[in-house]
């Protein structure tokens, strides 16, 4: 396949890397080893142990670089983090309304002209941490350094101090009802990319129902992976948001990845009713014209209601319809970037919710059904016949996440997630190949909570089980981190 460029979120990249490592290490058959979406051909196709170790070691570090908690807003309005966040970076109902209004309180003091001229809407975030990563069934040389000694499978464990990537958030208003985000984001080695960059025209025709965004941005996911509370290598992403069926490398899409395009969105005054309709390049957020000329579409709807003492509840639905090229024009046999054609389709549809039992207990349920065209599933150019047994891969993903807020500065976390293949890309594959189960527990303690900066002590344990066709592969993470922004 044509080389793909780094274009997705770094969190997504970490997820992919971690899973690729897991798959590779498991000694899975070729198609399984490439079961996870690739953001770079090197990552996806790597087979060597050294690549495995390198990727493994960096899996966590890149996993948390683009979450959203922006003290720049708190400084501007004099509000503590807890005003907009249940526990930062997750938004509460008030924070959601603030975001929907275009980072405006709506008090006629939102334009930058009302700020002290020295105010600059920038926030930096990084997470020093100690972490331990472990996975079984990793393929290694029998005798280290001796490539002739054959290979065996062992459990690899590594631990130590490290850094996450870094976000340099700039966000706010250019003018009343014109908002923006610019988010240069780096991995732990300061390799930078633009995670988000957009301008949004808010409240067009004096109506919250019409807002127009242009650039690279997060999809309007009801449960945002950019604002969630898990950070570790295995727990720091939703499997459902990035999963690809065993054997498929031709579709780089992840619903958790920031995408590039334009979005029309709207909301009621209190943001209880929301919609979003986006037209996106079929590039998984890659800002280059690296693939084809096709477009994807994303539709989201959600409705919240006030359930009295239980709090504000929200239920939403989404549908993402996309396509990816299956072959390219070539030069000397090498694909020419941007000339992708023969696009084939895929979709993701599902429901998500955000439910509270009072002010202390929150549940985030999510279910999704996914389908990729058989040409994508078998990595087959659409100008040739499908291989024998090829069929459209389909799978279901679901998770339930819960948060228990002991107080605004201390939260306990838990999540269970499952991926189940319902139809493999090839009828000859085991039906459960690629299935995954993940379990995460954690806690975040915010020793400070005010309007100038944020600091969270984060402790987490996560484990992922992957069906490789033989014995399952287990990988787990332990994390202790200081997550701060200012």
């Amino acid at each position: 396949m044509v080389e793909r460029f780094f274009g997705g979120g770094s969190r997504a990249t970490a997820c992919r890397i971690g899973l690729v490592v897991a798959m590779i290490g498991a000694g899975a058959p070729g198609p399984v080893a490439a079961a996870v979406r690739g953001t770079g051909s090197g990552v996806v196709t790597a087979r060597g142990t050294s690549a495995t170790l390198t990727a493994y070691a960096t899996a966590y570090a890149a996993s948390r670089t683009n979450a959203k908690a922006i003290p720049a807003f708190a400084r501007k309005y004099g509000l503590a983090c807890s005003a907009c966040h249940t526990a930062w970076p997750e938004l509460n109902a008030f924070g959601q309304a603030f975001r929907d209004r275009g980072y405006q309180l709506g008090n006629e003091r939102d334009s930058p002209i009302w700020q002290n001229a020295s105010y600059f809407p920038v926030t930096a975030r990084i997470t020093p941490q100690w972490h331990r990563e472990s996975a079984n069934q990793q393929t290694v040389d029998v005798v280290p350094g001796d490539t002739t000694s054959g290979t065996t499978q062992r459990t690899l464990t590594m631990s130590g101090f490290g850094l996450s990537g870094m976000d340099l958030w700039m966000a706010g208003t250019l003018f009343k009802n014109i908002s923006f985000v610019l988010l240069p984001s780096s991995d732990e080695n300061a390799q930078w990319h633009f995670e988000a960059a957009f301008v949004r025209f808010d409240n067009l025709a004096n109506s919250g129902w019409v807002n127009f965004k242009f650039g690279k941005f997060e999809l309007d996911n009801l449960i945002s992976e950019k604002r969630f509370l898990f950070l570790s290598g295995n727990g720091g992403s939703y499997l459902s948001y990035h999963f690809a069926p065993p054997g498929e490398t031709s579709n780089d899409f992840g619903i958790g990845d920031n995408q590039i395009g334009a979005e029309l969105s709207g909301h009621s005054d209190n943001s209880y009713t929301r919609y979003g309709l986006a037209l996106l390049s079929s590039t998984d957020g890659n800002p280059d014209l690296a693939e084809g000329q096709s477009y994807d579409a994303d539709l989201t709807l959600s409705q919240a209601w006030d359930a009295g003492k239980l709090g504000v509840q929200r239920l939403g639905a989404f549908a993402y319809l996309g396509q990816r090229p299956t072959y390219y024009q070539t030069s000397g046999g090498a694909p020419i970037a941007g000339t992708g054609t023969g696009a084939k389709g895929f979709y993701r549809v599902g429901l998500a919710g955000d439910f509270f039992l009072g002010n202390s207990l929150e549940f985030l349920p999510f279910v999704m059904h996914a389908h990729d065209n058989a040409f994508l599933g078998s990595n087959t150019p659409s100008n040739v016949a499908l291989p024998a047994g090829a069929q459209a891969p389909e799978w279901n993903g679901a998770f339930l996440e819960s948060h228990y807020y002991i107080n605004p500065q201390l939260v306990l976390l838990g999540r269970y997630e499952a991926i189940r293949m319902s139809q493999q890309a090839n009828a000859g594959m085991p039906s459960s190949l690629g299935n995954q189960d993940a379990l995460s527990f954690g806690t975040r303690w915010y020793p400070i909570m005010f309007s100038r900066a944020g600091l969270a002590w984060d402790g987490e344990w996560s484990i992922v089980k992957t069906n490789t066709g033989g014995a399952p592969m287990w990988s787990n993470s332990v994390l202790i981190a200081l997550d701060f922004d200012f």
Partner: protein
Amino acid sequence: MRHHSAVGALTGLGMLLLVAGVATGAAQESHIGNLTGHAASGQKLYKRFCIGCHGPDGDGNGENAQWIDPKPRDFTAALFKCRSTPTGTLPTDQDLFNAMSRGFVTTNMPIWEPLAAQNRADLVAYVKTFSPRFTTEKAGVSITIPPEPAISIDGILRGRQTFQKMECWKCHGPAGHGDGPSASTLTDSKDNPIRPYNFAAGTTRFMCGANNQDIYRDFMTGLDGSPMPSFADQLQPAEAWDLVHFLRTLQPLDTPEARIWRQWVATHGKDLKPIGPDNGQ
């Protein structure tokens, strides 16, 4: 005799405690429609949402107060701008609930409507605990707002005369720009400088609401804690409605009042005496 005295004293003490308990209990709750807010729940929410500006003691001295203009409300003084009750009286729970839900335009007080109504009711209950007035006094009785008369050019002109006669222009300026001769001298009840409302700012919202009833209520109750007095004793309801309709013409908005006014001014504007000290009235 001594026994009777002791019984009497204990009874009196019991009654006192009972009354105090009832009064305190009332202050620990709020009642908004079918909702009952509880201060204990509100305290946690206050810490989450309000403490940064209004402070842990509710005195408006939160850690962010020094950067905020106008300053956050001092709940210990129990002086609230936006009420349905006469000046000098306590607001109703509904008034506080409405103010919190609506936010205050041109200030840092956000629109808290996205919070669950129960949360807002709990917050109201807690805010009331900062002042002993809520345990010793009842809220005032909401004023009655008579039906709004039809908008007419005669009414708008009468409202204009009232604007002149009541000297509204001294603070709000002849054209309602908030630049009257007294504007720069105004302070609130805590001696903080305060600016009169600028009708020409183009906002659709006023401090205490957005519709004509809200404007009527503003100057018939006054905005306690600010220099804006109550005109309930100076204006008859009809005069107050005329003033409402005139004030609408000062806004650069396409209101019904503004349309009638612009049409009239196009043909009669040259006959208007300017508002201000030279008006001659």
